[in-house]
């Protein structure tokens, strides 16, 4: 088991999985703004994106998996955790509390940022520790999702947000 941690998010990666924790575009601090554990000097926050995959992640992957989903095979899985700004906390869409898990029924072939034949995706929005997130999962094969969902949930259960 390999562990990566940054910006208050820790991911315990099961064997064969790899991952990255990136600070999003809002990372760029304003003039004089210092970065300190996710907080800007002006009180703003930069937003974190986590990519975890059981295949070789390309060097450049967009927030919602662009650049990675195109190279996914049938057995490949991609889990993305995107953080939203504080203005999202308390909004109905993020009302669900706690890190969710996924079921086979959550997936759809049209539920992806970019529809690719054979793949399936799902999105769930939630709030943890006063931080708003979107969990976005892509499976390389929609038909195999009953077999791969347990693997995805194993990864999700290894995510800790503080």
């Amino acid at each position, binding site marked *: 088991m*390999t*562990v*990566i*941690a*940054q910006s208050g998010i820790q991911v315990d*990666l099961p*064997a*064969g*999985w*790899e*991952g*990255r*924790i*990136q*600070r999003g575009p809002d990372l760029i601090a304003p003039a004089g703004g210092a970065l300190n554990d996710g907080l800007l000097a002006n009180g703003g926050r930069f937003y974190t994106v986590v990519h975890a995959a*059981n295949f*070789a*992640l390309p*060097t*450049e992957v967009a927030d919602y998996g662009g650049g990675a989903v195109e190279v996914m095979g049938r057995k490949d899985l991609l889990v993305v955790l995107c953080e939203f700004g504080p203005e999202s906390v308390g909004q109905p869409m993020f009302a669900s509390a706690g890190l969710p898990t996924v079921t086979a029924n959550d997936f759809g072939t049209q539920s992806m940022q970019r529809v690719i034949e054979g793949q399936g995706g799902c999105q769930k929005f939630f709030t943890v520790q006063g931080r708003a997130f979107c969990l976005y999962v892509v499976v390389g094969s929609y038909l195999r999702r009953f077999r791969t969902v347990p693997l995805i949930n194993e990864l999700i259960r290894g995510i800790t947000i503080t």
Partner: protein
Amino acid sequence: MAVLVTMLALAVAFLGVLVAGLLRSHAEILRGLHDLGVNLDPDSDDNDAPHRHTPNGRLETPPGVPQPRSNETRAFDVSGIDVSGEAVSVAIAGTDRLTLLAFLSSSCLTCRDFWHELESDRLEVPGGARAIIVAKGLDAESESAIRKLAPRRVQTVLSSETWIDYEVPVAPYFILVDGTLNRVVGEGAATSWDQVRNLMDQALADAGLAAERGRNISNGPRAESARQNGEARAERIDAELRAAGFEPGDPRLYQQPASEPGTSRS
């Protein structure tokens, strides 16, 4: 007359001290060279030379020649930060692919060529392996230099732990890891990408994986057959060496020939 004899005696004594000093200096130089693995004695027989071992019992090889691994090194994932300082982990163990780890430094001149080679779109990685550059952490590397050198198309990870995990002796150094077998299948230092290719192609051939990877077979009976052929070959070679009196790790396997075949020693 007495003064002359005294002066002569003093001169002889002075010259004697001088010669003794020179001989001592010469002996120290020879001893130093011997410690570095250079034997200048024309009468010595390298095959009979005593083999030196480190305190932990491992064979001590000449400078520039990595020590043989005491046992098979298992695969370790590569975890650290990328060139932007983001946390990153690259899966090596438990995958169904080959990974070529390029241990590079921003300061070594030989590494410069590899940083540029790995930028190329036409780069041929042995065995179709995924190339990953591993530099030491920021405690030992220049962040700005690494950012300038890191190619866009190959993942660069700064991780001193990975250097320790894989017992990397020098930079540049290359290690080929098979995620399926969960172990190192080839390794070595090189000064050019052609040398890396030759080194790893040979390692793949020895491991019986070349045919498998060349046909893009990652599983199934043909892949298993290729793998077993490699293991069978290794076992056969071990048996033949044992029959000749060589056990794995025998120091004589790491000696360089004292002379070219067909030449005689003077």
